[in-house]
């Protein structure tokens, strides 16, 4: 089965809220699904697949279908942290190409900000999860692990092995803020400097506060359809060209944690798409922390291991640079409700639709975009989902 061009993104909606204390998570999803279908020119009766992930809604797929009063033929609530939605895209493509469904909705929401969730620093209390033994609860949590700490440990070793500098990590945050300044919905839009990042307080060495993503509410929906349905939609179809999934973990104590899931997930995505790194016009790289971007770009193969610090420096990630990434301002400046992967698909779609044509936010002549979602923690276990998208 040839999966390339097997499905297309035909509708998107990003809920603009960054703070929504009066809405339920399901309401945000419901509103987003309706608007994303409107964007596509489709309606409720067209939807036969439902994909969602949540760290707070129990049995998220069933409860969402109930709220929407939908009877999907295909239901998937794969939840692998922030990268869940790239996995959903991969699964939706497969289901559509196999003829099981014609139109899938991928949706997400979270009230992390109004709910006061310490996404990165809550430690064992961060998700209120039921215990899982033997690990992580009995061999990790008793040492005070935090999400930011698990990324900070990777940053520390990256600096040790490759001479990566705090200034280079800070460049990632500066580039994201530059892009956020062009996005009216972004949570933080005032430009920052490398020095601002270095001056912000240390949360978990070597990561400062401004090396860490924001915490917001938010949500959205993405509509994926078969080629037949896509041709009848209002918007220029954004084709799914290639997908790849992977996860990485401790490997029974033996894995070299400097190599992340992207190392495994990118190859099948590039092979399926039949494109090379030089063909990628822009990328949406999960930026939970500045180090996440450096590690991901290396393991996706945009540069050699250890060269990520140089690769992200000198404005190379900004629009006009060698590889513009996260043109919405990313998780570092725009929004991060906890699992940000769905927003990667949306901004890549906007860029491929040339929605910002004539403004500084548009990546010129954007034909192919890569999204890579990372979920979980680089230092412990995490998912990596690569999705390559393109326009005709």
């Amino acid at each position: 089965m040839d999966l390339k061009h097997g499905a297309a993104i035909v509708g998107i909606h990003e809920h603009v809220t960054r703070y929504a204390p009066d809405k339920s998570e399901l309401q945000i999803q419901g509103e987003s699904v309706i608007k994303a279908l409107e964007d596509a020119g489709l309606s409720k009766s067209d939807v036969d697949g439902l994909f969602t992930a949540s760290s707070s809604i129990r049995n998220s797929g069933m409860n969402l279908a109930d709220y929407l009063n939908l009877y999907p033929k295909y239901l998937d609530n794969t939840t692998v942290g922030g990268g869940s939605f790239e996995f959903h895209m991969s699964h939706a493509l497969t289901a559509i190409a196999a003829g099981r469904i014609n139109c899938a909705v991928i949706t997400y929401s979270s009230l992390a900000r109004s709910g006061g969730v310490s996404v990165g620093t809550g430690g064992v209390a961060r998700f209120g999860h039921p215990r899982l033994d033997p690990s992580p609860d009995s061999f990790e949590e008793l040492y005070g692990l935090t999400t930011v700490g698990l990324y900070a440990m990777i940053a520390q070793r990256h600096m040790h092995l490759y001479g990566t500098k705090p200034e280079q990590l800070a460049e990632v945050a500066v580039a994201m803020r530059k892009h956020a300044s062009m996005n009216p919905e972004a949570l933080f839009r005032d430009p920052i400097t490398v020095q601002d990042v270095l001056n912000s307080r240390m949360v978990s060495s070597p990561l400062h506060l401004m090396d860490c993503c924001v915490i917001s509410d938010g949500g959205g929906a993405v509509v994926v359809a078969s080629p037949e349905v896509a041709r009848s939609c209002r918007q220029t179809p954004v084709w799914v060209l290639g997908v790849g999934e992977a996860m990485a973990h401790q490997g029974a104590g033996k894995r070299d944690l400097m190599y992340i899931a992207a190392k495994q997930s990118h190859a099948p995505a590039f092979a399926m798409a039949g494109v090379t790194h030089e063909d990628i016009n822009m990328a949406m790289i999960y930026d939970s922390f500045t180090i996440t971007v450096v590690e991901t770009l290396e393991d996706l193969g945009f540069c050699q291991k250890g060269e990520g610090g140089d690769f992200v420096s000198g404005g190379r990630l900004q629009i006009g640079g060698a590889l513009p990434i996260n043109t919405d301002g990313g998780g570092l400046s725009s929004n991060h409700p906890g699992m940000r992967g769905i927003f990667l698909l949306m901004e890549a779609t906007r860029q491929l639709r040339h929605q910002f044509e004539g403004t500084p936010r548009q990546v010129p002549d954007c034909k192919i975009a890569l999204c890579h979602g990372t979920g979980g923690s680089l230092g412990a276990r995490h998912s990596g989902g690569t999705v390559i998208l393109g326009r005709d």
Partner: protein
Amino acid sequence: MPDWNKPLPSIVGETRPYWEGCRQGQLLIQKCDACGEYQFYPRGICANCWSGPIKWVKASGRGTVWTFTVTYQNRTPGFDGGPYVLALVELEEGVKMFSNIVECNPRDVKIGMPVQVTFVKANDQVSVPYFKPAG
């Protein structure tokens, strides 16, 4: 001894020997009788070959800091009182385990630093293995 307010492990069948070892001041890890591989965290199967019987062996208790972070912010009780060192320690046997580096100034911790295990009694059932600079 002040009341222990940090998280505690739950002791289940497959990990009981580990915690019993800790209680007696010994760091026990697992080795597969079939493929000879060490593994960590302890579990009821060999994660490498999926076939061999697992035996418990006494680790030397020595290792090096593979990586670490000085954590300044964590809401978890017991970790909310100031900076502490979260580390991945690579044991001499070749497996890595999370721990805290104790009995030293967090500023003095370096990657590659030799460390050795030390146990702190949490209660009558549990002693927690930490690492301190090797003397």
